[in-house]
Each structure stands twice: as C-alpha cells, then as structure tokens.
C-alpha cells in the first residue's frame, strides 16, 4: 500500500515535470512564432529594400553582369527566406500544439491517478440576504453606469450622417435632372442649323443679349475682348476629370480673398520683403485695367483675375501671371435679370468690392448689382444669374469662396439674408440657408477644426458656422453687432471676430463653442484681423496695429501707423504684411514684440488686400496691378 502510494507519487512528480517542461517549450515556441510573424510583417522578404535598390541600379546600367548575378542570388535568397519562415511558423505551430497536448495529457493523467478529494465543506455561514443586498446595489450601480455610459457615447458620436447623405442624394438628383454639361445627349436634326461655334445650348439667349452690350462698348484698347460670340471655337477644352481642385492646388494658389481659406493666412514661403514701385525694384510687372473696383486679385497657376465695374458696366480681367500680359477681358454687363436701376452704393464700396474666386476650371465673380457670373479660364461665359438687387445701403461687398465644386455666396441683406451655394459647373442652386441677421460686408471663411470643415460667417448679431456641403447651421453665438465689415480670423481652434463700437471677441471652437475672452479696447470696422497659434493681430481702419495673446486676450503691443489702413493684414511665413492706404506695406514679425521687417512703397495708394502665390505678391493699387517678386 505504502509502496503503491509512493510509486503513484513518483509518477505524479514525473508527470508534473513533463508538463512543466512541455509548458515551457510551448511558451518559448509561441514567443518565437510571434516574433517570426512580426518579422514577416515588418520585413517582407519579397519586398526587400536591397532588392529594390539593386533593381533600380540595374535599370540605370542595364547589362551589368555582376549586378545581375548579385540580384539573382539575392532574389533566390529572399524567396527561400520567405518560404522557410512560412515553414517555420507552420511547423512551429504543430510542435506547439503537440507540446500543449502533452501538458494536457499530463495534467489529466495526474487528475486520473490522483483524484482531487472534494474540499471539506466549510461551516455554512448563511449570510445569503446580506450578500443579495450588496449584490443588488452593485447591479444597480452597474445599470446606472451602463446607462450613463451609453448616453454619453450616444451624444458624443451622433453625427447626422444620414441626413447629410439624404440631402446629398437629393441634390445629386436635382443636378442630374438638368442638362449639366454641354454634352449632346439627344442630338436631333434641328441642331443642323445651330451655330457651329456654340455648343452651349443654355446660353443661347444669354449670348444674344450680351452681344448688344459688347457692341455698344466697342473695343478701345488692343485687348482681346471676349464678347462671348467671338473666339469660342478655339476654347481650350479642359478634359473633365476631377470637378474640383485638390488641397495642394488650393494651397499653392490664391483663389480667395485673404488667402486659400479666406482667413488671411498664406502657407507659402520666400515672398519678397523689399520692393519699390517708384524705382521698379523687385517689380516684375505692372498692368493696367479698365474699370475700378476694390476687389483683390486672385491667382490660379499662371493667371491673375480681377473685376472692375462702373455704374453701367461690369468686367472681369485676366492677366498672365508671369508676364503681366493681358489675356482677356469679358464684359458681363448684360446678365439676364440684372436691375435696370443702378444700385446706390457708397463711394468707398463701389460696384465691384467682392473678390472673385476660382476652382481652376472656372472663375466666379459677383457685383453690387447682384450679378453672379461664371467664366471659363478663357473668359468664355459659362453661366450667369442675377440674385436680385441686394438690399444693402453701402453696396454688396462680401467675397466669394469655393468649397469643392460649390461657389458660396454670403448674401446678407437688410431683409431676407441667406447664405447660398451654387454648383460651379452648372450654376444651379445647391443649397440655400436663410440667416436671421442684418446686412453685413464681411466675407466667409472655411476653417478646418480638425474634426470637420466649417463655413464661418460674421454678421450682426452673431458668428455662425455652416456645413459647407449642405448649408446646415452647425452653431451660432450672438456676440457681435453693428455694421460689420471685418471677416473673422482663425488659428488653432480659435476664431476671432471684431466690429467697431461693438467688441473684439474670441471663440474657442468645439462641439459647443465658447468665448474665452473679449475686449472693447480696439476694434475694426474695415480691415479683418489675422491670427496664428499664439497671437491675434488686429488692425483698425485708422491705422493702429494691436497684438493680443490669442488664448487670453492679453495685449502685447500697440503700434500706431501714420496712415489709415483699409486692406486686411496677411500672415505669411511668420510675418504680417499690412498695406496702408498710401501704398506703404508694413511688414513686421508675428511676434510678442513689434519688430518691423521693412516698409516698401508701392508708389500709389491701395485699399486692396494683396494676394500671395508662388513666391510672388500681387497688389491691386488704385490704378495698376503689380506683381512683386525676386
């Protein structure tokens, strides 16, 4: 009996040892397999760097026998390595399984020959109801926790994608119904007689009406005047591909008032800091245009666009960005529905205060008459429409901005204000969101909060954000009032709005935007502020520059200029460019202390915000358009 017992014990000890040993083997194996797995994932033998380099070398020196030999050997090696490591994983897996099986068998065996004696029952201490009570409490806590947790989750993650999608579907259907392009879907016999040069049917009426006006204003200058009926056959057909430009394209150009996003921040580098319009230093070219306007130039690749207007005529100009050569001029005076009475506008606003915008395929312009036009890159009219005479006592001044293929119009009037988006290709109204605001002269900007894109508009009484694709209002804060001319500034999650006699206010964006600080020390009625991560630069129309701490609103410095400033400051490469009314550009560091970099002169007055693109600065002076570069 004793002996039997001890032999059982010996067997058990042996089994335990075997089990431990196999367990260790299994552990080591699984670690090894894991490492092998990661290695295969990390360094794919079939895509080895060395082989790729050799292949490149061989490409540049074809027929190199040594290189070929080397490559072939390495390739063979790599493939061998690939199949071997695969074999290793597989075999390793089997061995792992076998060793685990041994562990299991050993343990079961031990159980079999040395059955566990059921534990001696402890004295029952029947506290069932106490246990139950605590149990209940725990269950309730868990329930509450689960409910709260899921509620929080529900609120945090709700995005209303469904609605957006539905809207998208609806708007897609709409645009699908109208003949979007000039493609001849159902050619019929009667097209035989139609004008050969004109393939854009919807524009037929427009063309005839426009001809009259271009006749009456016959060509005075050696400019190639596009009066739509001329020269259409030669239009440079842009192959339809992407319907809107990429982010890099947008950033490398300047398609909007105050930089790519309309926030006064420009991303390029190496812009000149010295020039002289009188001596011609660093002035690459200088060009004239016919009609006045206070809009800023926009730049797309090799083209610069401007508009100008008199009380009766409205024109869009295009210049060659490299030479300054005049490329075309299009008279867009005769838009159907344009008011016969001239709107009364303030002298300092004019008829063409709104800056143009472009998506690289078409350029869009809006005038104080409420005429919205789209021209292709060769100046040919694509579509035009009148939005109604703006109820605006100084004249419409909000600039246009593009979101993808949508032209967005801030249409703030004294009655029936709204924000609208038109399809750039067809001119069709894609969305229209009414706004409960008074008339304003500020311009929209697009900000990327990191989570989404928001279209920001400022007008008495609120700063409001919209979903740019659908026009849905995202949030609004009533925090500003008066006749607002300055657009907002944005940097690093902070939005800044200002108006004279109201206040300067900072808004921290988020799911519920908040106002961390506001001030009434300095405010602006015309120039828009500009901000970076740390500072807010505010310029008043009477020529004071103030630098605030963007986070706290602490005032760092004040600089008083001698002249008035109407143009908005632009932040470029850690420098702020600010044009005063006399044409002196004040360039200073975007820093905690005021450090002037330089003060180049243009030689004529300017009230327009300069455009920055491709290392060159484009300035619209009172008479001339300047291109400044090294």
């Amino acid at each position, binding site marked *: 009996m004793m002996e039997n017992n001890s032999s059982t014990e010996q067997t058990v000890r042996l089994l335990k040892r075997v089990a431990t040993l196999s367990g260790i083997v299994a552990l080591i194996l699984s670690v090894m397999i894991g490492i092998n797995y990661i290695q295969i994932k990390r360094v794919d033998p*079939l*895509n080895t760097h060395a082989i790729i380099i*050799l*292949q490149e070398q*061989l*490409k540049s020196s*074809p027929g190199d026998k040594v290189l*070929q030999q080397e*490559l*072939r050997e390495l*390739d*063979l090696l790599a*493939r061998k390595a*690939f*199949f071997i490591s*695969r074999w290793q*994983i*597989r075999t390793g897996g089997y061995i792992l399984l076998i060793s685990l099986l041994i562990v299991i068998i050993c343990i079961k065996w031990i159980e079999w020959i040395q059955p566990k004696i059921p534990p001696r029952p402890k004295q029952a201490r029947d506290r069932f109801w106490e246990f139950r009570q605590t149990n209940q409490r725990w269950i309730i806590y868990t329930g509450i926790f689960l409910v709260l947790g899921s509620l929080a989750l529900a609120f945090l993650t709700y995005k209303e994608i469904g609605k957006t999608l539905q809207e998208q579907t609806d708007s897609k259907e709409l645009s699908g119904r109208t003949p979007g392009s000039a493609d001849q879907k159902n050619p019929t016999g009667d097209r035989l007689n139609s004008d050969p040069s004109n393939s854009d049917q919807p524009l037929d009426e427009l063309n005839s009406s426009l001809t009259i006006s271009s006749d009456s204003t016959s060509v005075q200058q050696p400019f190639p005047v596009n009066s739509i009926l001329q020269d259409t056959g030669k239009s440079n057909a842009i192959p339809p591909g992407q319907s809107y430009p990429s982010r890099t394209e947008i950033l490398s150009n300047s398609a909007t008032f105050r930089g790519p996003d309309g926030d006064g921040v420009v991303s390029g580098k190496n812009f000149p800091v010295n020039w002289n319009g009188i001596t011609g230093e660093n002035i690459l070219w200088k060009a004239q245009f016919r009609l006045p306007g206070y809009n800023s130039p926009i730049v797309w690749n090799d083209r610069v666009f401007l508009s100008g207007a008199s009380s009766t005529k409205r024109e869009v100009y295009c210049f060659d960005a490299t030479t300054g050569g005049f490329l075309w001029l299009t008279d867009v005076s005769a838009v159907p529905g344009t008011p016969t009475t001239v709107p009364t506008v303030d002298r300092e606003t004019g008829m063409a205060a709104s800056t143009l915008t472009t998506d690289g395929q078409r350029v869009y312009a809006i005038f104080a008459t409420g005429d919205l036009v789209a021209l292709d890159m060769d100046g040919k009219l694509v579509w035009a429409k009148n939005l109604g005479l703006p109820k605006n006592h100084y004249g419409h001044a909000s600039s246009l901005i593009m979101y993808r293929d949508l032209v967005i119009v801030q249409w703030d009037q004294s009655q029936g204000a709204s924000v609208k988006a038109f399809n750039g290709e067809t001119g069709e109204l894609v969305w229209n969101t009414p706004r409960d605001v008074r008339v304003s002269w500020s311009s929209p900007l697009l900000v990327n909060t990191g989570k989404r894109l928001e279209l920001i508009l400022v007008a008495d009484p609120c700063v409001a954000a919209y979903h740019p694709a659908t026009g849905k209002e995202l949030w609004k804060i009533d925090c500003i009032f008066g006749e607002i001319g300055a657009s907002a500034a944005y940097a690093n999650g902070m939005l800044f709005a200002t108006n004279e006699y109201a206040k300067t206010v900072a808004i921290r964006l988020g799911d519920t935007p908040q106002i961390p600080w506001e001030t009434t020390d300095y405010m602006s009625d015309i120039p828009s502020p500009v901000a970076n991560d740390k500072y807010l630069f505010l310029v008043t129309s009477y020529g004071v520059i103030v630098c605030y701490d963007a986070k706290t609103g602490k005032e760092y410095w004040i600089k008083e200029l001698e002249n008035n400033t109407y143009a908005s400051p632009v932040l470029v490469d850690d420098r702020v460019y600010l044009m005063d009314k006399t044409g002196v550009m004040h360039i200073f560091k975007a820093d905690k202390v005021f450090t002037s970099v330089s003060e180049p002169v243009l030689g004529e007055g300017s009230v327009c915000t300069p455009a920055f693109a491709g290392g060159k600065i484009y300035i619209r002076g009172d008479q001339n358009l300047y291109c400044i570069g090294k």
Partner: protein
Amino acid sequence: MEENSQGKRVDRRVFLHTGVQLAFVAGLGGLTVLVARRAGGEGYVWQLDPAKCTQCGRCATSCVKTPSAVKCVHVYAMCGYCDLCGGYFVPDTKILDTAAEHQLCPTKAIKRTFIEDPFFQYTIDEDLCIGCGKCVKGCHAFGNGSLQLQVRQNLCDNCNECAVARNCPSGAYTRVPADKPYLLNEPGTGNGPPQKTEV
C-alpha cells in the same frame, strides 16, 4: 391547508413550465418553417468575380489561410501566348528571358515555356502562388485578362464569413452555389471590343 397551497403552487409551476416549453417548440418550429422555406440544399462557397477585382493585393494578406486559398488561375483559352507578357515581365524589360530580375511575380510562381515562334505558354505553380494579383493586374492592363484570381475551392476552408470578402475593397466576393463554384471570365468577355457571345 399549507400543504395544499404548496401543492397548488407546484402544479401551477409545472403548468407554466409546460406552457413555456410548448411556446418554445412552437417558436422554434415556426422559425424553422420560415427559414426552411428559403433553404437551399446545395450550400454556398465563396468566390470572387474577376470582373470586379481591382487587384489590391488583399487576397494575399487577408485570407485566414497562409498561403491564401486565392490563387491566380490561367484561363488558357483566353491567353494570347504572348512573347512580351504583361503578367510575367516587369514593365521595363528589354530582354525577354526568364532571369529573376525580369519576373514580375514575387514568388516566381509563373513558369514560361517556349512553344513555337512567337508563342510562349505560361503556367501557374499554385504551390508557390500567394494570390497577390500582381500578374493579374499586368495581364489585365496589357493583355487579354487570361490570368484571373479565383478562390481555389480545394484549398478554401469555406468559412462562414470569408475574411477576404470582408476586406475586399471592391465587393468582388459573393457566395456562389457550390455546384458552380467558379466565376472565371470567359473568353471574349475580357479585353477587346464588346461582342456577342456564341452559345
């Protein structure tokens, strides 16, 4: 009295029990009938439609099997037997030989054999093929599309939900009836002008 009520309670419990049991039987039976009306005897297997395939390479990495059960299948009847084969050679090959540096396949699973001027036969060694679809892309772009990815049904475990199907970006995977387990593009449906198929 006490005993009686106890007995009644037990009776009630038994009655309830049986009732619920019957309800379960009815429910399960109903479900079976509902589902069985649509039941098909044959069963399904997973297959990808080469017409939708974009050769993203995930068949090689997503399949639960290593190497993947998806292989390149050569439809010889479609093949042009080209000398300059887009599925065999790397794009910038000048010399058309079987040297390692000229082969597109990462595992060299395609064998090239000379038939007669100017024709070559290409054979897939399915033991080496990892289903990456590189040759398929080449053949599709430059050739007739005779190289196509297919789930090899003898290798496929026929998972209830195919892991490659879940990862397929172009939705090319579907359940197909087990008696028609392949979805190869037939000759004439690949490249070339659209045409009627002879039946």
